[in-house]
Structure formats: structure tokens, C-alpha cells
């Protein structure tokens, strides 16, 4: 059968046709596979795809492939697989059905091929209709100055009673097993001194040695006394700076005395 087609083509071939066919074959890259090529060929039948002659289409396709072979053009394997299948289909369609043979009839196969072609064509038409629609940014437009939606993040914190209990237990146990830190039991801090002096300063109408402001329990032990003296001195300076007291010292190493500022 293929030979017959081939002969037909070769005997009638003119130079002009040869050029035309070369153009067609060189154009094979323009086809997206055998189905696309079949669809293109089927258009030459100029009938509704539903009434297409699959036999005729198979002939056209096989002729095409033969030509490509003669011109030694490489055809993708897909095309050759389709050619083999169409040759098979053609023989099925032409020969009387063999009752011993299994599988679908030639008509069923042809009908499916026709369906595939019709479906592909339909999808192409649909794609064209889709692209012909009005499109966003081309035919219709979105808001030109979109206002940003401010995202307000509201954070809610939560804790469970267990968290609370565990937190508390953690602190209290830490107290007992805490890593070594110096217990500052011999330290009278500047803050403490300030606090103490602020409470007492109101009574300091006359010049008084700042030593008398040391807390009682910081006077006996030398270490504690040293700390309290230093912080009380620093606190006195701070109070003087704040304009609450006047400070004086008659000579080096003489007692430092302070007095509430008169106008206070």
C-alpha cells in the first residue's frame, strides 16, 4: 500500500512540486508532533472534521513521511511511530475484517483518531477565544492607586497556671541552689544611702558630720563601716548637687559636715 502511494507521488513529481514538498518537510519543525501534522493535513480535505476520511488522511501522512525519507530528512521517532500505526490502520480499513483477529476494529481506531483531531482543533479554537477576551491590564484595569491594607498585628499573650506555678517554683528553688554569687551583706549601696539620707535630711538644720548618718548596724564592723561611709559620702555629694544640702570640710581629713539648705 505504502509503495503504491509512493509510486503515485514519484511519477507525478515535478521540480516545482519537489521544491514545494521540501518546503513542507523542512517546515516539519513547525509542526508540534504527528497529531499537529495530521490536523494540518486533514484541512486539505476541506470537510468537517467529523466527516473526515481517515483513510485518505493516512495516505497523505504516509506519503509525507515517504517524501521526507527520500529527501533523507531526519524525522523524529514520533513521526515514524505514527506512520507505522497509520499503515496498520490503513490495512485494517482496507482489508475485510478477520474474525480471528482480536482488538478493536479499523473503524473504531479511525473514529478515535478523528476524535483526537477534533478535540485538538476544539482546544485550539477555545484557546483563541480565550485570548480574544478582554484582558486585565489591556482592556480593563484595576485600581491605579491601591491603598495598602494595614496589617494590625494584635498579640495576645497567654500563660497557664502551671506556667505560673513552675515559674514560681523555679525562682524559689533557684534561691536554694543558685550559682555562687557574692552575698553583698557587707555592702551599703548608694541607693540605700540616698534613701536613708533623704528621710533624715529634713532634720539637719545644723552642720552635722556625715558619719552620724551611717546606719547603726553599719558602724561597728570595719568592712560594713567602710562601705556605708563611702556610699553616704557619695549620697551627700548627690544631695548637694541636687541643691538640697550644703557640704563643708575645714581641712584635709577633717570631718565632712552637711546641713539642709536654708531656703528649703
Amino acid at each position: 500500500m505504502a509503495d503504491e502511494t509512493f509510486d503515485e507521488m514519484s511519477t507525478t513529481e515535478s521540480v516545482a512540486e519537489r521544491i514545494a514538498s521540501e518546503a513542507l518537510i523542512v517546515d516539519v519543525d513547525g509542526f508540534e508532533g504527528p497529531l499537529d501534522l495530521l490536523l494540518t493535513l486533514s484541512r486539505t480535505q476541506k470537510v468537517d472534521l467529523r466527516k473526515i476520511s481517515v483513510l485518505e488522511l493516512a495516505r497523505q501522512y504516509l506519503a509525507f513521511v515517504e517524501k521526507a525519507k527520500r529527501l533523507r530528512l531526519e524525522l523524529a521517532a514520533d513521526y515514524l511511530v505514527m506512520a507505522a500505526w497509520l499503515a496498520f490502520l490503513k490495512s485494517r480499513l482496507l482489508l475485510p475484517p478477520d474474525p480471528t483477529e482480536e482488538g478493536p476494529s479499523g473503524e473504531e481506531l479511525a473514529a478515535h483518531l478523528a476524535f483526537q483531531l477534533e478535540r485538538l482543533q476544539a482546544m485550539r479554537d477555545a484557546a483563541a477565544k480565550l485570548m480574544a477576551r478582554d484582558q486585565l491590564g489591556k482592556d480593563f484595569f484595576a485600581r491605579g492607586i491601591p491603598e495598602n491594607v494595614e496589617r494590625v498585628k494584635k498579640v495576645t499573650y497567654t500563660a497557664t497556671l502551671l506556667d505560673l506555678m513552675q515559674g514560681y517554683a523555679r525562682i524559689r528553688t533557684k534561691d536554694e541552689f543558685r550559682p555562687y554569687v557574692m552575698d553583698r551583706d557587707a555592702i551599703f549601696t548608694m541607693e540605700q544611702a540616698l534613701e536613708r539620707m533623704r528621710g533624715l535630711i529634713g532634720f539637719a538644720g545644723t552642720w552635722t558630720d556625715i558619719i552620724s548618718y551611717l546606719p547603726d548596724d553599719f558602724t561597728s564592723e570595719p568592712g560594713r563601716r567602710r562601705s556605708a561611709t563611702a556610699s553616704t559620702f557619695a549620697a551627700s555629694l548627690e544631695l548637694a548637687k541636687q541643691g538640697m544640702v550644703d557640704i563643708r570640710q575645714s581641712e584635709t581629713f577633717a570631718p565632712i559636715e552637711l546641713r539642709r539648705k536654708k531656703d528649703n
Partner: protein
Amino acid sequence: MSEESVTQEESLFEAPPIAEQERMCEAILFATAEPVTVKEIEARMPHGCDAAEALVHLRKRYEGRGVSVEKVGDAWAMRTAPDLGFLMQKETVEIRKLSRAAIETLAIIAYHQPVTRAEIEEIRGVSVSRGTVDQLLEMEWIRFGRRKMTPGRPVTFVVTQGFLDHFGLENARDLPGLKELRSAGLLDNRPPPGAMPQLGEGDEDAAEATEEGQSELFED
């Protein structure tokens, strides 16, 4: 304390009148370039509002105006009337040129969704290049749907809200010519009888999967 007062608040303040709700929807849609879902709109409105109803009123109000209120899937957006596109030459954005393969693939996904790559290949008769799918994904016109419950559990593709928005479709059911294609049986999946050349591996999957998907899509 706080819970109690909230409950009180709810009962104390009724939802604003529908005209006011319409104004609110108008402001929200107006301010946003992207479609906003009814749910999102309602979340931003005071308690007890019925955004869906307000939107229907709003759409009606804008009928025939220079701007229209459009439904895009389950979201809403305001868009200029298509017949006035000529006024907006300055705003026109260059739409990326899509290859023929990409356009066809997009159409197949839209009309056959959810659809597997094997099914697309079956219809086009050639393999689908990765680049084509990637491009469509990147443009956010398609996305992955749920996997098919067929051997190999292949992924499927569906079109997105962005696709509907771009082509001015309220719904995938409004695709041009969809009804005709359906009644012509061109959206059916017809398994090839016997020995057709297999185009693409996942073919067996394809049969079952498409049929399910389509009927599902167009159910409601």
C-alpha cells in the same frame, strides 16, 4: 470582665444598615487592586454584616458606570469598563507573550481541569515542556490541584483566581464555548481503543481521572 463586655457589645450594637454596609464594601473593593474574598471583606467589616448581600447591591449600583463591580471566583473586584480601555493607554501593561504551546496548555487546563500532565500530552499529542508549565505557574494563572487517586497519584493542574481575574471570568464555568464543547463530547475522556500510540506515560491514569474531574467541576 472583658468577655462579658464583648457579649454586651454584640447585643448592644446591631449591624449597620445595608446601605452603610454597601458603602463599606465599596471602600474595601475600591482600595484594593486584587480581588478580595467575601470572607475577607466580612472580616474587616463590623460584626453581623452580610457582605454577600451588600455586594449584590453594589454591583447593581455600578451597572453601566465607568467602573464595574466584578465577581471573580469567590472574590470580588472593581475594574474599569472594558469599553473604556482605549482611555488607558498609559496604564496598559505589556502582557507577556505566550508561546502557542503555552496558550494551548492553558486552555486545556482551563477546560479540562483538574488535569494531569499526561492528559494534556494526550490531547496535544506532544510532550509538555517543563518551561511551559513553569511559565504558567509563574504568571499565577495555573496552580497545582489535588493529586489524582490513580496509580502514581499524579499531580493535577487547575486555573487560579488570577486567571479568572485576568480574563474577566466570574467562574471557570463561564469559559467561552464551554457548553458547546461539552455537549459535543469534546471534553470527555475517551480512552483510546486498543493499540493507539501511547503519548505520554501516565495514560491509564488519565482515563479515569479526567472524567471524574470534569463532572465535579461543573456540578454546581
